[in-house]
């Protein structure tokens, strides 16, 4: 212990000085945060407005649909994801696996507990039970796929299609149930990000392929689009979509703010994704295309079966990074358009009669910051895991 102290904190007198200064600052900061969270923070404002913050004015009697979506996704995740089981001597012990799971999901679970504690209603307890049950069921289904011959022989497409039906059906029901103008809060941040990610994928890949096309006109058009979008600030594009989109559509169509922001996010992220995918394609050695040609495959098949899958796999970390940025940038939609996403609601609730003018801004921003931070942090940690697992980025 003493040698560790000497080596890491007090090597020279300059070192010791740095240690004292930095530790002092760190301890003061930790104490202030602790004091704020436990003692001086007035958390009633979050307590009262929790539903508003998380889902906006989503109708209360349809909330079970949202619970359904989360549960169904948990089931699907447990049934589909996760690495292969390692058997035999190398398999980690129960305790080690528990430690790994805690490290990986501990933060999410902790935040979940905080939310449940704040909500404090009976139904949240049921919700937690439902999620745990869904996870367990998902793992079990995964085991059945391996063990029961009839299930194992089903082609992958059918198996995954059926499994994915669960969350997809729930999502479709949810979208159709409530008027989108009532949606708000964290739900809308998620929804905007999720939809934009889904839609920008095909467009981004097409743009990347177009930029490498042999036809000069196609290459030029794609290049112009990508460079123009990458040079423009997202905020200005959102503002533009608020006032100018009407001019480009026939007068009968008046899209709501959600449509406008999803359009902008999709077009914007597609350009960045195109550059990422192009980088991935460039990193594939020429030998791959040559091998494909030697086998007699037509160019399109080579692209979609050989080079593109490898390129996409190689740039997974960069893609996840882009999506994390998108997730954080959904806050801009609240500032530029009239979407009541969580940051905007946070500021709005400080103006409610019960809370006006008493400096509640610290508490609401802390809560909003916590949710965004945990989401972003967990996604980037997962991205690092994927990077390590695929061995990508290591020469």
């Amino acid at each position, binding site marked *: 212990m003493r040698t560790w102290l000497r080596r890491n904190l007090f*090597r020279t007198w300059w070192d010791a000085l740095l240690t004292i200064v930095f530790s002092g600052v760190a301890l003061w900061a930790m104490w202030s945060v602790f004091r704020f969270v436990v003692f001086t923070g007035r958390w009633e404002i979050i307590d009262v407005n929790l539903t508003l913050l998380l889902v906006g004015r989503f109708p209360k009697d349809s909330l079970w649909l949202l619970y359904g979506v989360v549960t169904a996704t948990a089931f699907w995740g447990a049934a589909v994801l996760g690495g292969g089981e390692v058997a035999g001597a190398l398999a980690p012990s129960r305790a080690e696996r528990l430690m790994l799971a805690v490290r990986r999901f501990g933060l999410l679970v902790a935040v979940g507990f905080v939310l449940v504690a704040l909500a404090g209603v009976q139904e949240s307890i049921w919700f937690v039970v439902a999620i745990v049950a869904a996870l367990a069921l998902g793992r079990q289904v995964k085991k059945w796929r391996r063990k029961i011959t009839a299930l194992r022989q089903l082609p992958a497409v059918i198996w995954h299609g059926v499994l994915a039906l669960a969350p997809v059906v729930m999502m479709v029901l949810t979208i159709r149930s409530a008027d989108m103008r009532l949606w708000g809060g964290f739900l809308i941040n998620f929804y905007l990000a999720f939809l934009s990610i889904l839609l920008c994928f095909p467009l981004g890949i097409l743009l990347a392929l177009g930029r490498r096309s042999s036809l000069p006109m196609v290459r030029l058009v794609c290049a112009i689009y990508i460079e123009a979008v990458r040079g423009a600030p997202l905020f200005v594009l959102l503002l533009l979509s608020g006032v100018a989109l009407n001019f480009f559509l026939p007068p009968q169509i008046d899209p709501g703010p959600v449509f406008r922001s999803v359009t902008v996010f999709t077009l914007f992220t597609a350009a960045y994704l195109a550059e990422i995918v192009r980088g991935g394609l460039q990193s594939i050695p020429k030998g791959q295309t040559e091998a494909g040609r030697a086998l007699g495959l037509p160019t399109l098949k080579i692209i979609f079966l050989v080079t593109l899958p490898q390129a996409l796999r190689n740039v997974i970390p960069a893609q996840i990074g882009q999506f994390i940025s998108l997730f954080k940038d959904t806050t801009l939609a609240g500032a530029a358009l009239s979407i009541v996403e969580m940051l905007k609601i946070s500021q709005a609730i400080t103006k409610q009669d019960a809370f006006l003018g008493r400096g509640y801004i610290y508490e609401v921003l802390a809560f909003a910051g916590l949710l965004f931070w945990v989401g972003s942090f967990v996604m980037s940690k997962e991205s690092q895991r994927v990077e390590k697992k695929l061995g990508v980025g290591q020469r």
Partner: protein
Amino acid sequence: MSEHVNADATQMSGGRTASEAIVVMEGVHKKYKKFSALKGVDLKVAKQEVVVIIGPSGSGKSTLIRCINRLEEHDEGRIIVDGIELTLDIRNIEEVRKETGMVFQNFNLFPHLTVLSNVAIGPRQVRKMSKAKSEELARELLTRVKIPEQAVKFPAQLSGGQQQRVAIARALAMKPKVMLFDEPTSALDPEMINEVLDVIKELAKDGMTMIVVTHEMGFAREVADRVVFMSDGEIVEVGTPSELFDHPKDPRTQKFLSQIL
């Protein structure tokens, strides 16, 4: 378990007298987490002695010499170089590094500096020589390793053998008392190995104390005063080249030599 071998400088070739030890290692242990890289190594190297260390990969040869200039920190035991003991004190470490020169397997030349600057940077920054004097010294050394005309080029423009010779010049520029070589020719194409070995042989002839880790047995036979065979983090056998190569005593030494020679 084999007997613990104590490698003192008791026999030397070439008629040189045994002088005081310039490098002393006593009971040196080094562990990486659970793996023991060095298990109780004792070694004394005298002035002007040339010690060649051989052994299978993973035997701890590189770790041994990297502990001497503190590129690795030993966990137990004592290492004393030219009277200075290696401890946590950073001033000791810097003093020791000034007296030892190291040549790496992968050359490790600074790619953003010219060849001349690579050699001159040590004397200039550490020995505090003036720019002119350090460059003069650098040119001398480049002539000594027979590539004076490469002075203004960048390392990437040189062949592997030339780069390694620049690395030797860079180490010599600090006027060290001991030169450490970590597999200096292992990364070279076969046709360039000899040009580098010739330079090292000349250094030995000029009386430089050297510890060389290598697989080049012919070189070892020609130049070494003592050959040390290491395996699994221990010194297994020590002897003059003729003793060790022609009459190895330990079965592990015999096995290794039969695979190499």
